[in-house]
């Protein structure tokens, strides 16, 4: 049997012809891509955290507003005085329903009256939670209390400052 080249060329041609249609076939599947962007967190505090009227004494002291009961208490030379509203701040949060939100408070906030200042610290929500769970309607309310350090013979005046609570989804 003689061997020559032409049939081999035909052979390879047949292979290509037979295979090409199958290799060109593609199988396609559709796939869904899904994502959920949650409702952004927002908050407002319609009620300020109010320490009320305080009488400073010759020694330093503290005034504490309890977040849960709303009552005030005094230590040291600071004395509770009446005549001005006092109580915790009421904060309303809104966001993604049923989601947990973490609450982070600064260590302290300086409140001032002109050149004079006092330091408020120990910010805490009622029950000391560091998180709150939004309801099925996407809202939750909580109270924040704190303590203010009153200096010896702290100058009289209306002291004010701003507490910034950091909220984030957990």
């Amino acid at each position: 049997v003689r061997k020559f080249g032409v049939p081999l060329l035909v052979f390879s041609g047949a292979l290509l012809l037979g295979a090409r249609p199958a290799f060109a076939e593609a199988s396609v599947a559709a796939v869904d891509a899904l994502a959920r962007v949650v409702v952004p967190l927002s908050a407002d505090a319609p009620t300020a955290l109010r320490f009320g009227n305080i009488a400073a004494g010759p020694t330093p002291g503290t005034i504490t507003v309890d977040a849960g009961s709303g009552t005030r208490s005094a230590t040291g030379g600071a004395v509770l005085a009446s005549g001005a509203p006092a109580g915790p701040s009421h904060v309303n949060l809104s966001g993604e329903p049923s989601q947990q939100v973490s609450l982070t408070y600064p260590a302290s906030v300086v409140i001032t009256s002109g050149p004079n200042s006092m330091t408020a610290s120990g910010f805490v929500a009622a029950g000391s939670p560091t998180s709150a769970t939004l309801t099925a309607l996407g809202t939750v309310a909580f109270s924040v209390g704190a303590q203010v350090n009153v200096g010896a013979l702290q100058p009289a005046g209306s002291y004010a400052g701003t507490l910034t609570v950091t909220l984030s989804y957990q």
Partner: protein
Amino acid sequence: MAAFAVASAFFLLSTSAHAENSATVNVDARVVTPLVLTKNTDLNFGSFAASGVAGTVVLDLANSRTATGGVTALAIGATPSSANFSVAGEANSTVSINIPANVSLSNGAATMTLVPSTNSPAQVTLNGSGSATFAVGGTLSVSANQASGNYTGTFNVSVTYQ
């Protein structure tokens, strides 16, 4: 394909007829098993929070999700999952995976852009039984203050013999 095989045979015969001596030649062609691609799971980025800073959510092929920039990934709602596919076809063959360059997801009003990802290089080799699986993940671009809602999009994935 049958028509191609017949035409080849005629070609072979006529070529042989021009030769002075007879020769036998093996003619071999293999028709491979058609590819069948099946989607097993969709691509789900789960839930996350947008912010005033743009960012991304990246879902890798092993279902691991990471958020960058101003995006915070949340462990609520649907579990994040890459898309998973099964391929059936010719045993031991390698097939190319074709995915679109980008896909738009919409909540009906706002959109986000997804850049799908898969194996690198984009191929998968079928085993001795002619089957394989592969995953498609991606990177989702989230705008600053991206509107809340459920976003969906659909895209096609295909496989072809190499």
